[in-house]
């Protein structure tokens, strides 16, 4: 692996062969960012549940798309994409309309029901632990977006807590290299299809 990484495109990758549906990433995320009840920035889904040999699980959150549909559809233009590819949004601009939820292929945008008469609040989603537009590591940033671990040189909370290291995050090229290395070191070649997250 190269040591000269420029982090041009930060991505998540979850290895479905390693994920054991422990939901540690979900809990770690909620705990670290003090995410309100009813909102999950990350979720674990399982298919073929109970079928021996076919059951697989995946941890999912915002995929920080390069051409993010949420950014395209947002009427207030509250989304912005950092130079390292992390998709963030400005809660001061968000009006909670929910268009991003309709446009997102992954169901990443979440809305607390804290408006009057149960109406939607402002959108909340995975920030890849990179905070938001407020001053870095300020109280306001933590209150609105949670921890800014990226600014401290740390990996996102979900990945750091993943017990099987199924969940990887980093530059897309580096993540791909790790995936290749793992598969190659097992002596089986790349045995699973790469689904892109």
């Amino acid at each position, binding site marked *: 692996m190269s040591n000269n990484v420029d982090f041009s495109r930060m991505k998540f990758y979850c290895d479905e062969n390693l994920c054991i549906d422990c939901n540690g990433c979900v809990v770690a995320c909620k705990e670290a960012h003090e995410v309100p009840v009813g909102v999950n920035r990350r979720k674990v889904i399982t298919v073929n549940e109970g079928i021996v040999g076919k059951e697989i699980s995946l941890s999912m959150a915002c995929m920080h798309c390069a051409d993010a549909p949420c950014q395209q*559809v947002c009427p207030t233009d509250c989304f912005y994409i950092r130079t390292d590819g992390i998709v963030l949004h400005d809660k001061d601009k968000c009006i909670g309309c929910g268009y991003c939820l309709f446009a997102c292929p992954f169901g990443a945008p979440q809305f607390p029901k804290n408006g009057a008469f149960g109406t939607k609040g402002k959108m909340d989603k995975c920030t890849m632990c990179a905070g938001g537009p407020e001053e870095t590591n300020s109280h306001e940033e933590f209150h609105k977006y949670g921890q800014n671990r990226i600014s401290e040189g740390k990996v996102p909370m979900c990945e750091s807590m993943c017990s099987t290291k199924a969940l990887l995050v980093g530059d897309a090229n580096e993540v791909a290299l790790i995936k290749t290395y793992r598969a190659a070191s097992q002596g089986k070649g790349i045995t699973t299809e790469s689904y892109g997250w």
Partner: protein
Amino acid sequence: MENSSFFERNKAYIFTLLGLGLVGFVFVKFMMIMDWEYLFKYTMHVITGGNLDGVLTPPDSTYKAMVDKAFGPNYEAIAPEIIRASNERQLFIWWVFVAEIAIFCVMYTISGRKTAVITNPNDQVEVFSLFHRAIIWLNVFIVITLVITGFNITWSLRSEGGYIPFILRGTHEITGLIWFPIWLLMSIIAFKDIKLILKNSLINKLVLPGKYKPMKRIIFLVFVMMGAGLLTSGFLIWYLHPDAYANAQIIQFKRALLYVHFGSSVLIMFFLMDFVYSVLVAVKGNLKGLITGKYPREHLEQLAPDVLADIENKKGKMA
């Protein structure tokens, strides 16, 4: 062509259908990015099976099963159109209303304003009871609020979001809920055609006097149908609030509902603007009557003889 020909009697319906058909065809064929086959099958699937998740056929691979469970199926069927239309609404929808207002200006230039010759302004006839006026004005205020707060959402690029647009968005949802009983009452009191079938004292009290001319009947039908579409879709979009785990089961249905909401809002606004022009701009003296409930007898004789005849008929029956 004679006045009593089929075409003359039904030209309002024919032109409306042709106009909507033409605009609809151009829009559907050349502008929208929608998988119509999927949408049709999905609609039938929802109606016949009650299953909202959009999975029309069982997955034939682990990958498809994963996509269905994680994201919901057929993202490319409806979502791209939502993205396209979102930009379009912000940039181009102004022109729909500019075009409609331009048509009204041309009509006003050609036809001018109908005015009744009033020689005895003290001879007044009550057309709208207090109940009628309350329903009508509540509808006016609520629809104006819904239009303003609705455009606050779609045109937020201009306001750049923030606290006030956020509050207005919540107001849109709450006002929509309040509109339901008011829309229902308006649909009942404006259902003039029921008098063709039922004639009793309750109907006479509840329903507005007069008969519908074809264009007004179209506006009434659009108000009822599109109002129902707006209220149902709006309520379901609000009520169906998926969390992260339930998102894949509901999101396709919400996307389809959003389209019902958009389509209904465009149609109802177009015809309501038509109604406002034909009632308040093209005819003088109607606004005052809507406030007081009374019109000079000569106004009704000259401009709304069907209303006067209906009222006289009711009075005759009571006497």
